[in-house]
């Protein structure tokens, strides 16, 4: 069977089948997983990172790690959320590096000033205004909020990922929510 046919019939396969093949070393199966979930992973990474810079690198890195670790994944049908966890971890790592691996409490410096009037003019929708508001959040607040509200992580998971107590996560989330609500009101 030609590769093209194989790829097109693999495109119909479930995540579980594809993850199993990739775990065993099938590059074609892995390629279908990339095509299926790559866009979602990039969108998520962009939200964590606060911009599109580094997104391609971070997601690429996540997939390469996933390829190596797939044989350890117990529930193959959960490969999508597992991939999201890996990309989340890689993105947080990237932010850690941006802060020279300083503790997260120190990531709370205010975001740089932006040209707000221009941005306001670009804003067309609720989604746009949220994206703008997110860009203005300090990294620590944005990371907590995106992990919670977009990634669906629990407080405990966020706390483990960031290496801070759940109470700190709560505090950061509360501030993020408040600021986002305020910012979005202003954009309206």
């Amino acid at each position, binding site marked *: *069977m030609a590769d093209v*046919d*194989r790829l*097109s*019939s*693999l*495109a*119909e*396969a*479930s995540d*579980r*089948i594809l*993850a*199993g*093949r990739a775990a*065993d*070393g*099938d*590059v074609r199966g*892995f*390629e279908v997983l*990339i*095509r*299926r*979930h*790559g*866009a*979602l992973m990039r*969108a*998520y990474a962009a*939200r964590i990172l606060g911009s599109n810079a580094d997104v*391609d690198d971070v997601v*690429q890195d996540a*997939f*390469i790690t996933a*390829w*190596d670790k797939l*044989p350890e994944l117990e529930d*193959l*049908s959960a490969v999508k959320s597992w991939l999201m966890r890996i990309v989340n971890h890689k993105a947080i790592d990237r932010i850690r590096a941006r802060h020279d691996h300083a503790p997260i*409490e120190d990531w*709370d410096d205010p975001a740089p000033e932006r040209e707000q009037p221009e941005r306001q003019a670009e804003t067309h929708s*609720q*989604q746009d*205004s*949220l994206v703008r508001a997110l860009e203005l959040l300090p990294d620590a607040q944005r990371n907590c909020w*995106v992990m919670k*509200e*977009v990634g669906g992580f629990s407080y405990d998971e966020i706390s483990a990922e960031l290496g801070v107590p759940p109470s700190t996560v*709560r*505090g950061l*989330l*509360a*501030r993020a*929510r*408040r600021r*986002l*609500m305020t910012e*979005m*009101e202003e954009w309206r």
Partner: protein
Amino acid sequence: MNAANDDPADDIVDVLSDYLDRGVEPPRELIEQSPENHLALAALLRVREAARSLIDVDEGGLSTGDEGWIDSILTNLHREVKAGRAIPLTHPSPRANLTLTEGAVRGLVRAAGDSVDGVLVGRCVLDGDVTVAGSPVVVRVEASVFWGEPIPAAAERLRVAIAGALIQHTELAIEAVDVTITDVHLRRTDDEGQQS
């Protein structure tokens, strides 16, 4: 850092968030208690709705411009990590060290399974100490069948194809080939007649 948390407006946002996190509607009395609470809930719901749309991308939403990016991922995969265990082949000479990699055998199983019409092979596990010649080995395979295929017949054809390939190419002492059909998949409409 604690100053912000003393603000009562934060408290109500926290309280309302907790309800929403648990998937529970906040009590009416709480909402109707004050216009601020009402506004806070409205704003919170608006942010949440927008949050869900933030990663609202189509499945497979990569564009043709992303082909280079996909290729660079595939090129950078560490192929060697999938080699697995070394499966010995016998030879009369003590100077011969002949092996099949576990990865090669899994690939063989996959190809044999895929050659069966209407079947796609998933995970393949070689259960047994394959590194010792003659050890009993059970091959466990997951597979998906096209929607509408009779599953027992497809599983049997798959078992026969896999056993045949293993007997032809390896010296494994195969005790059994266990096939588990885990999924059913749909044939693509533009794929008619392409399946060999």
